[in-house]
């Protein structure tokens, strides 16, 4: 992230962006290059999954300036004091995004630049009646026919929360949630750690239903054209991907600019139209076809449940432990 000044001739500054490596062929020309030109900066990408990238930042010897993480991992970074506080007044575009997206991990830290819905996908051809509720996954008919997210994946805690709901508890109740989870285990052939596993199982007929993020639904339809995605009647969950500035960064100013830039109508619109990310900027307007497969529209966003990541993070260790002991035999 430091600008090197050898050879007398000034080289452009370097901004290191840590991200998933998803849709690089879109981001590079459509997002990074315009920014590079405008700010005479070179954007270098460090790609990988949430956990691995966060670990490298933890070890404090990476050059990362800006880091994309799901809210669950962002919270860990925040709790460990790895990220710089963000002055929202310096990020004017924040004002234009959904309220839910403004401060997923608290007002002092980075916003979500996209929100995805976590709901249920299923294959109606293999089921006698349609799925409408989280509860339906507990049905006896589903024995050996579904998969559920692993507790260590981003959506794992969300599903645990759904279990708590299904158990009848209004507030999250850990014990009830786990009792309910025990009941669903005979239905699950396995837990999935990566969405690709879900997609593979679904397309090969190993499973006929399961909880999954909406952004992957298009892929499921490729394999099973009749597949359906629903927001369960109890409500889907909001998976929020955030941006944060790393404390060790020496390009905080520029990082702020970048954060503002990716929330802009222009960038948000482009990525929505390319079906890369669902927009959070409310100024972005999409036609019905453009919105297909995206989590879009005030109603949808409003209906989504949001987990308190601080609470999740404080409890995740215990949840994982209980999950391991009580559910995996």
């Amino acid at each position, binding site marked *: 992230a430091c600008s090197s000044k050898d050879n007398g001739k000034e080289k452009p500054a370097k901004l290191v962006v840590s991200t998933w490596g998803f849709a690089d062929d879109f981001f590079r020309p459509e997002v990074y290059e315009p920014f590079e030109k405008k700010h005479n900066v070179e954007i270098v990408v460090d790609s990988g999954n949430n956990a691995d990238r966060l670990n490298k930042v933890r070890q404090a010897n990476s050059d990362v300036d800006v880091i994309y993480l799901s809210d669950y991992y962002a919270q860990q970074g925040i709790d460990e004091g790895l990220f710089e506080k963000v002055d929202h007044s310096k990020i004017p575009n924040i004002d234009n995004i959904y309220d839910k997206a403004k401060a997923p991990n608290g007002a002092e830290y980075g916003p979500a630049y996209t929100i995805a819905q976590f709901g249920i996908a299923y294959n109606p051809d293999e089921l006698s009646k349609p799925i409408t509720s989280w509860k339906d996954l507990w049905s006896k008919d589903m024995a050996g026919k579904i998969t559920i997210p692993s507790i260590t994946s981003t959506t794992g805690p969300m599903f645990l929360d759904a279990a708590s709901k299904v158990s009848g508890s209004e507030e999250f109740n850990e014990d009830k949630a786990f009792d309910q989870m025990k009941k669903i285990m005979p239905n699950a052939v396995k837990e999935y750690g990566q969405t690709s596993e879900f997609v593979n199982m679904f*397309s090969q007929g190993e499973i006929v239903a399961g909880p999954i993020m909406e952004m992957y639904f298009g*892929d499921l339809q*490729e394999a099973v054209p009749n597949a359906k995605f629903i927001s369960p009647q109890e409500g889907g969950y909001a998976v929020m991907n955030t941006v944060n500035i790393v404390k060790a960064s020496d390009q905080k100013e520029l990082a702020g600019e970048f954060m503002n830039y990716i929330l802009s109508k222009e960038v948000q619109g482009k990525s929505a139209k390319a079906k890369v990310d669902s927009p959070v900027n409310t100024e972005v307007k999409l036609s019905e076809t453009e919105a297909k497969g995206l989590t879009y529209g005030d109603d949808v966003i409003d209906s989504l449940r949001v987990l308190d990541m601080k609470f999740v993070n404080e409890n995740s260790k215990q949840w994982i432990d209980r999950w391991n002991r009580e559910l995996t035999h």
Partner: protein
Amino acid sequence: MQEKNRGLALFTFLVFLFLLGPLLIISVTSFEGGNILKFPPEEFSFRWYENIFNVDMFLVAFKTSILVSLGGNLLALLLGVPAAYALSRFDFKGKSVINAFFVSPILIPGIVLGFAFLRYIVGTYQLPIYAALFVGHTVIMLPFIIRVISSSLSNFDFSIEEAAESLGASKLGTFFTVVLPNIKSGILAAVMIAFLESFNNVDISVYMTGPGVSTFPIQMLTYVENYFDPTISAISVLLMFITAFFMFIVERLMGLSYFTKR
């Protein structure tokens, strides 16, 4: 082969069916036209092969991986072959300790090894990320090189080495002219195993990649975390082709026997 080996031949055939059958399925899926890895495939196309070359990070990471795996392999050979030789040729006190010492890198779960590397090689020793990656891969290749080569030296008739020396060959010369040619396939096995171990490695590389520096399998993992298309099938097939092509070149230049003891 005589008839008495027929049972064995059949057995071997079945083993290879087991080994290669899945590859056939993978190859078939790589030609799927749709966006999803599927079997049996429904359409036919080459688009996922094209896709490999459209993904920038694959190309860069592939180069890095090849450099690191080959370079590390070379360094591991330089360090490991002398050690393997010493361990097979001489009897000395503490040999079993040294033996255990050299296999120790494979005893340690990769994640932990990677973490330790990140903390000390990148952290404390302050090695640049590229160098650290290189060193880390050498460490994990070394045990394969040493153990595989020394096991192939275990039935070696060392008297021909004395013969070579008495004819005027130096120790080093003897090694290159009479030992090496007779354990070629052992060396080859070692190099292949080590290369693949390094080339496919995820656990360690994951910690030793950084901005702009990443390895091929890491990029593949990253890719499959986000896409479900047959690109990785196509990559697998392509890798097999590259290997086959490389072997073909070697065979043209030196004959396939290059890979085996006479």
